[in-house]
């Protein structure tokens, strides 16, 4: 259930319809792929086959529900944990795996750590690591769309910790002042690495921060794909109608470690995790589908099986794709190669083993 507040006037809304049963089944399938891919990536990292991974288990409903409520023209500004967003948007799994490996198929040309992908044709902006920087950018893109009179929204994704960033403050404030059609989708997964939500900020909720900018603020159960879908649809509606931006706090939990470099046992209790796992969005959605007679256990097993096969194929393909040409290192610093970089490039080439020379 979504609580929408604007300025000092809290307003409780009764949930209108969420996803249709058909949509829910499709959404569930995406959530399954998401979970299966996430699990595989953790394994690949442990086996040294990819260098790093930041899992998102527990956040599937939030990401899938949110993206489901958008139009494909809407621009997405992800952080580094938005696998579910990418999948709903249609980014092919092989492309993602190419990025994780940084091979010749990687459209980012091996420039970034795993997770930090982005694809212009999907209006899915390339993520960076410094937290929050995407937030002001999403507002700028929204202002640009507004200027060009394109009736779209921009959606920016970030975590609870990132509400402390400079760009959160500047972005929300600009969006308020300029009525930018931006949805600020905060996945409060309760942790910023080792810092719990309560130590990140003393505000009652994260959504209440909307009041500081005179924009809409919504708290939503991020384990409930319907609730998220509804909240985002409403926010989108308001935004394109010129009613301004919305800050949505989707309350979720990070089931896994912050990243493969992290050991959550150092700072959090298993019992808390167990409590939240009872609300696992995948189990919950599956349960609903089964109860509604839209899914059987056998079909479910099949879904998982298909997902895993699909992923295995993509991994195989990605691992067989040739490595990057080292000379690409000098592309894209500027639109064209300045003489100085040409020299660097030549120098590097002189150190390459003969087989790598053209």
């Amino acid at each position: 259930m979504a609580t929408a507040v604007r300025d000092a006037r809290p307003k409780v809304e009764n949930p209108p319809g969420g996803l249709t049963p058909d949509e829910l089944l499709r959404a569930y399938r995406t959530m399954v792929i998401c979970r299966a891919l996430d699990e595989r990536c953790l394994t690949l990292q442990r086996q040294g086959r990819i260098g790093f991974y930041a899992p998102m288990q527990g956040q599937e409903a939030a990401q899938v529900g949110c993206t489901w409520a958008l139009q494909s023209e809407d621009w997405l500004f992800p952080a580094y944990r938005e696998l579910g967003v990418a999948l709903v948007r249609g980014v092919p799994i092989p492309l993602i795996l190419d990025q994780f490996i940084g091979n010749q198929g990687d459209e980012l040309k091996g420039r970034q750590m795993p997770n930090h992908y982005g694809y212009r044709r999907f209006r899915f902006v390339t993520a960076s690591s410094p937290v929050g920087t995407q937030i002001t950018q999403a507002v700028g893109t929204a202002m640009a769309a507004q200027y060009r009179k394109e009736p779209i929204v921009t959606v920016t994704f970030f975590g609870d910790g990132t509400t402390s960033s400079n760009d959160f403050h500047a972005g929300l404030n600009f969006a308020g002042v300029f009525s930018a059609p931006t949805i600020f989708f905060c996945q409060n997964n309760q942790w910023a690495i080792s810092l719990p939500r309560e130590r990140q900020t003393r505000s009652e909720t994260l959504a209440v921060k909307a009041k500081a900018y005179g924009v809409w603020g919504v708290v939503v159960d991020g384990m409930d794909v319907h609730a998220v879908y509804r909240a985002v649809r409403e926010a989108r509606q308001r935004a394109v109608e010129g009613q301004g931006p919305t800050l949505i706090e989707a309350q979720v939990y990070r089931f896994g470690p912050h990243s493969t470099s992290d050991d959550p046992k150092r700072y959090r209790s298993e019992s808390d995790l167990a409590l939240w796992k009872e609300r696992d969005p995948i189990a919950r959605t599956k349960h609903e589908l089964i109860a509604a007679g839209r899914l059987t256990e056998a079909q479910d097993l099949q879904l998982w099986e298909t997902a895993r096969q699909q992923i295995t194929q993509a991994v195989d393909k990605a691992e067989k794709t040739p490595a990057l040409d080292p000379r690409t290192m000098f592309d894209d610093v500027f639109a064209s190669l300045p003489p100085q970089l040409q020299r660097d490039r030549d120098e590097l080439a002189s150190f390459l083993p003969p087989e790598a020379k053209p």
Partner: protein
Amino acid sequence: MTELTLVQAVNRGLFEAMKKDPDVILLGEDIGVNGGVFRATEGLHKEFGAERVIDTPLSETGIIGAAIGMALYGLKPVPEIQFQDFIYPAFDQIVSELAKYRYRSGGQYPCHVVIRSPYGGGVKGGLYHSQSAEAYFAHTAGLKVVIPSSPADAKGLLLSSIHDEDPVLFFEPKRIYRSVTGEVPDGDHRVPLGQAATVREGTDVSILAYGAMIPVAALAAEKLQEQNISVEIIDLRTLVPLDEKAVLASVEKTGRPIILHEAPRFCGYGAELAAILAEKALYSLKSPVLRVTGYDTPFPYALEHLYLPSPERVIAAVHTSMKSG
């Protein structure tokens, strides 16, 4: 041709770009109704409206972040940072984002933003209205850095910057915003990026400089002429990409380089020029590579006239150089 001050030439450049291309959008603090604290955007709000000349809240983080978002979308934003000294709250957006967008996305997201900002001392601005921060940006791969020294260059380089495809930091020497006037071509006048100008030819010494130091170099050169020392002045105009050829050609001719800038010396832009000479022109050098720069202190208020490189300090360096080797 019209006789303009440097700041008027900036204004005309912005006007020209905006008239031609509706994608050119300005944003910044006090640039709209107020016309900018230096009046660089005077009249543009009236001409092009609040949609294209956007008065923003007081946040450089927001200004540059929003400008980047606009550029990703396909507009050509030209944000203003009111004083270069106040660019630091936007440093993360500039260094982590603007400089790296094209690269990190494998070329998918070019990010063409032209950041205008007045820089430098000489206006009694003290520590926070006088800095010359060009070295930070010149060191950041992915950014172009441009500094004009004349009204015609101000307009021509600004228009080239706006029509470039890469992010450009366009720093305007506020000390000579009004003290320097000159003929400026009307219309879409362009001065190409990456080309230095020989603003004075000479044979004995090469002064490598830019921005507000060009008039200082010129004054020194005049006096030195009286002493029969022939000074060549190279105005770099574009710090990144540097016109290395022009620099090397001049120093190979004179053998005596003097590097001149108002930023502090240590790790300043002049260090790179010296390093290039020490690598590529070593055998042409008749004298040590000398730098005349601001001192390695924060920028002072009461003593700024002694902090800034003066013609006297340039002349002394030239004399030292002439005596060497």
